[in-house]
């Protein structure tokens, strides 16, 4: 018996000895991502997880830059008429699709016309002011029926990517774009392989020959892979795993704003939250610093309204509007007729640890002023149906992704918006929002969005908590990481130092 066991052990060790860490060539990189893309068809895909990868495969007329501005992509230059009703885009010469064919104005017209058809594409809403798309020589002309200051930003989104018409039916699994990388293989639940597109119009990019996107759902497992060198980069590490990588001499951590607005959402239409004083009391009772320390390990910036500081000049700092003041909160509650506080339910979305921890801390802080919350952690599908679609909730914690244009972000609080699940309702807000879309003067437009953010704070619409940091962790020799105020993963400038 003893001999058999010993033999087994030796056999096992010999088998294991096959050593696992394989040296990778210098021009390739392995990136850990948590989920599979939903679909690579620009008109089908909704998931942020897809658009962040698609950013490397497809391009639109214009694209987002790391500073939040819009830079030329398939259009080498563009002009907007003063009345804001006519956009002309000059197409870049000699751009090729991954299938080898050259880009024509007809491709642009075809893709954008399909995109704005609400019978075919769920995202058509953002392009509804387009009246016609035509071409003159190498120039694509877009005419609007009313000024739409958010249009240029909308054209940077994955939905507005240009693809060759003949590839229409294969795009969901075999994308064909003009971007710096070509998707060469996709094994669901396992990995995606991107390879350098040799005919990319920008000869400087990409720096790498091959990028493997390894799908690893568990953050703990992703960290293990990074520590053993099986993975070179985790673009979005959850803050709770920070301590496992901090201080590791082989790794570096780059933290930058995520442009995500995390909030304790309040159902403004439901009693007792329909009382401004109650909402203000909740705002005074919340200690943002404590949440940032407790839920995000200190990695986040406090916010005072529904816009992230990453939005540059659009952003209005309102963090001081409700200084943490539990005494004032109690006083306001008493004025509203709740001297002993009240009880309510707080729904937290199960798949988001950051929102769950923040919610638990909020509950604790609110209990201190007499508002007792019954915490219910619910599955994402249930959250979307119950809280988001049916608006059947009192309080919840959630985050909204950043977009390039403030209208897209703040439009959510228009009283008639179907995305307005907090039931915010304010006449001045509705009017200003429409004005902001038609305003073509940048300075006047900026003033409008500052005012809109202020209204959201004044009316204590929700408790705006923080913009959490995006923690990108990578091997020390990886360079070229770029952070964006929108949800993209820019692989083209990445390289590995020798």
């Amino acid at each position: 018996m003893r001999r058999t066991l010993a033999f087994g052990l030796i056999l096992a060790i010999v088998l294991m000895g096959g050593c696992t860490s394989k040296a990778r060539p210098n021009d390739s990189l392995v990136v850990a991502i948590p989920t599979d893309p939903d679909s690579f068809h620009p008109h089908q895909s909704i998931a942020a997880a897809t658009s962040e990868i698609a950013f490397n495969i497809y391009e639109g007329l214009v694209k987002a830059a790391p500073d939040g501005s819009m830079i030329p992509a398939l259009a080498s230059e563009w002009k907007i008429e003063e009345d804001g009703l006519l956009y002309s885009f000059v197409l870049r010469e000699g751009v090729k699709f991954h299938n080898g064919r050259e880009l024509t104005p007809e491709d642009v017209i075809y893709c954008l016309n399909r995109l704005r058809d609400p019978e075919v594409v769920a995202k058509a809403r953002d392009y509804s002011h387009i009246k016609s798309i035509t071409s003159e020589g190498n120039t694509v002309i877009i005419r609007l029926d009313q000024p739409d200051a958010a249009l240029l930003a909308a054209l940077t989104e994955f939905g507005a990517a240009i693809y060759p018409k003949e590839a229409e039916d294969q795009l969901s699994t075999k994308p064909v774009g003009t971007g710096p990388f070509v998707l060469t293989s996709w094994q669901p639940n396992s990995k995606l392989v991107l390879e350098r597109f040799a005919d990319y119009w920008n000869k400087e990019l990409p720096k790498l020959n091959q990028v493997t996107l390894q799908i690893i759902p568990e953050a703990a497992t992703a960290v293990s892979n990074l520590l053993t060198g099986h993975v070179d980069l985790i673009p979005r590490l959850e803050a709770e795993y920070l301590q496992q990588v901090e201080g590791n001499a082989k790794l570096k951590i780059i933290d930058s704003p995520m442009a995500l607005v995390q909030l304790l959402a309040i159902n403004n239409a439901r009693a007792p939250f329909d009382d401004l004083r109650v909402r203000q009391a909740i705002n005074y009772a919340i200690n943002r610093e404590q949440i940032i320390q407790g839920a995000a390990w200190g990695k986040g910036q406090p916010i005072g309204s529904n816009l992230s500081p990453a939005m540059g000049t659009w952003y209005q700092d309102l963090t001081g509007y409700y200084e943490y003041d539990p005494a004032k909160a109690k006083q306001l509650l008493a004025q509203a007729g709740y001297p002993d506080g009240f009880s309510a339910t707080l729904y937290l979305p199960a798949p988001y640890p950051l929102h769950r921890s923040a919610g638990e801390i909020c509950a604790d802080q609110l209990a201190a002023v007499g508002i007792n919350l019954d915490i219910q952690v619910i599955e994402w599908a249930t959250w979307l149906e119950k809280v988001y679609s049916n608006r059947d909730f009192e309080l919840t914690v959630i985050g909204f992704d950043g977009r390039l244009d403030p209208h897209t972000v703040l439009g959510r609080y228009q009283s008639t918006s179907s995305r307005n699940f907090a039931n915010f309702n304010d006449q001045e807000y509705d009017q200003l929002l429409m004005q902001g879309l038609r305003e073509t003067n940048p300075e006047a437009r900026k003033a409008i969005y500052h005012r809109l953010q202020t209204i959201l704070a004044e009316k204590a619409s929700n408790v705006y908590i923080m913009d959490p940091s995006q923690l990108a962790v990578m091997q020390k020799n990886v360079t070229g990481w770029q952070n964006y105020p929108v949800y993209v993963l820019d692989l083209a400038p990445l390289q590995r130092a020798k």
Partner: protein
Amino acid sequence: MYWLKKLAAMLVTLGLVTMATFFALYLIPGDPAALILGTEADPEALQLVRAQLGLDQPTAVQFVAWLRGLLRGDLGNSITFSRGYSVAQLVLGALPVTIPLALLSVGVALLIGVLFGTVAATERGGKSFIVQYLSQISLSLPAFWLGILLIQFFAIRRGWLPPSGMPAWSTDPQGAALSLVLPIITLALPRAAVLTRTVRSALLDTIREDYIRTARSKGLPEKVVVYQHALRNALVSISTVTGIQLIQLLAGTIVVEQVFSLPGLGRLMLSAVLLRDLPLVQGAVFAGALLILLANLLFDSLYPLLDPRVHV
């Protein structure tokens, strides 16, 4: 006749399982279209996506359509998890991970179970005590915790094995085999504990039988008595329990494949349920049910070989 009956029972079970899954998915909350659109959804977009996915049809109509497809050998396309892939493609891609994982785990569990169970049954005192104690511990280990612990030690500290993932068998067979080692240990240990106990009690039962006393009194060496006489006769009950373990183990792959990021059937099923990908859940459950029924069939057909008194 026996096999015909078996086959009929299998088909009925499969039918019931698929029907139950289909309707269960309609009872749990969560609209696939809402999941696709997330926090950017509006009613028009929801309606459009529902129509595109065929979800605007009544449940019964959808079920009949699915059954029709099945009869033609078409399981449909996934709708929320990597859209555009056919369910058959995804399920078939997952089998080369899950089948070897399950079979090897049960093999390892059986090996450990027989070795340790025999020790526990035949030795007295210390050794037997240690074996029983170990089996108690491994029985109560949560799979995900054990998995993370193994990764920590064998992958991070020692660097002997990959921490997760699995390359395709066709491109890197050695890598694929190596990446299954830790998942197999994770899956096999609790099963081995159960089998150790089964082997022990089965052996203790048979050792009391008359023919064992006869064998001993003939002067046969103890090893021959235990391995050739006692164990041989204990095999029937061991194989019954092994069959049950294999089925439980298939359910256990859901957790283990998630922890080790293995692209197997369990993980596919989990992704599909979380994303409410109805056709994919249907297809994956169908495949899982088929695997379990085949495993049952395999173990049923073993009985006559193990015990000549059993006839079919």
